[in-house]
């Protein structure tokens, strides 16, 4: 699959998910863009021998940062973007294979895959958190600098 097709599909998927959550019209395209960027980061990293968990983590961080910036730019809550933005990163196939293994009575394999699913979900969660933390630190720095500047003037 060529990368532009993937970009288009992730954009479309995220956009549709935004619609499902009644995201305001003016934030729809930005929401789709967030998902596409997340997918792009994931696929730009993972071919270079990077662990899928770490790639997911970095992609989720990017999604979170993007949605924070967009929330300031468009003046809507950042949930609008981050909720749908993580959709292309959802570990659907690992979760599925884990269930399949359980159903087939292959418990050891099932537990391995379930753990992997949990790790991937945790990576998404941690990435989102890291994005929020980075952003709040940055915002704090900006506020402090603005305060200093105001004093010196």
């Amino acid at each position: 699959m060529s990368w532009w097709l993937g970009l288009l599909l992730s954009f479309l998927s995220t956009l549709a998910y935004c619609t499902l959550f009644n995201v305001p019209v003016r934030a729809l395209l930005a929401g789709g863009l967030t998902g596409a960027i997340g997918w792009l980061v994931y696929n730009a990293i993972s071919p270079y021998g990077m662990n899928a968990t770490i790639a997911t983590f970095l992609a989720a961080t990017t999604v979170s940062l993007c949605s924070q910036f967009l929330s300031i730019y468009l003046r809507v809550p950042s949930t609008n973007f981050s909720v749908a933005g993580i959709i292309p990163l959802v570990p659907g196939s690992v979760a599925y294979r884990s269930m399949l293994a359980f159903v087939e009575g292959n418990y050891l394999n099932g537990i391995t895959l379930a753990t992997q699913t949990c790790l991937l979900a945790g990576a998404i969660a941690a990435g989102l958190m890291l994005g929020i933390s980075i952003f709040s630190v940055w915002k704090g720095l900006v506020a402090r600098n603005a305060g200093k500047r105001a004093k010196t003037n």
Partner: protein
Amino acid sequence: MDTCLLAGEIILKNGGETYRAEETMALIARAAGMDNVNSFVTPTCLIMSYRCMDKDYTRMIRTPSRTIDLHKVTLVNDVSRKFVSGKMTLAQAYRKLQEIDRKKPIYPWWLQNLAAGIASGAFIVLIGATWFDILPTVFAGIIVNVSVYYLEAYLRVKIFTEFLAAFLGGMVVFLLYRLFPHLHLDLMIIGTMLPLFPGIAVTNSLRDLMAGDLMAGVSRGVEAVLTALSVAAATAIILSMAR
């Protein structure tokens, strides 16, 4: 008081974060000139108290049903910002909030269902399905979304609703797979379950935890886990049929 509680209720009911509801309520009350403002919000109830002219006021409301409508959250956010900055009077804000509360979703019903289908279809191609798999998955995704909507009115138990919806969607995919064996059952099932993915619950639970609302964060996290479990159970049943 009514304005604060209504604002908080709308945010909470429509999938806003807990800390956003708390903050909005406190900001409105403070802007209206109340002292000692405190608000406490969990996913199922809102408590608010303040002091005005040496008298204490406290009120609490429950939020029985929760849906997801981020547009309303955004609108309430705008109203509170306008009120706090003084561009709106209290009466105006209250009227505006009531208007928001009555609003219907901005996207028509069929478009939302179609969107669920498209989300499913686009997602499975993303993880490697062929173009033939799209149509059944779009169909099944729509079925899942429609059945969640209808079953919720009858069942009242959210976990069971999601389980049944996932099961129905899975059955559709499974039957189509039996008719056309060259489709990919695995990818189609993954795509079908996508509209049930608890995205809001996961994101909000994290943001609540980050904001220090431990109780709200944990309870939303549990909500997400329950949804995931019910979907997993439905998938397991479908798979054991497919063997």
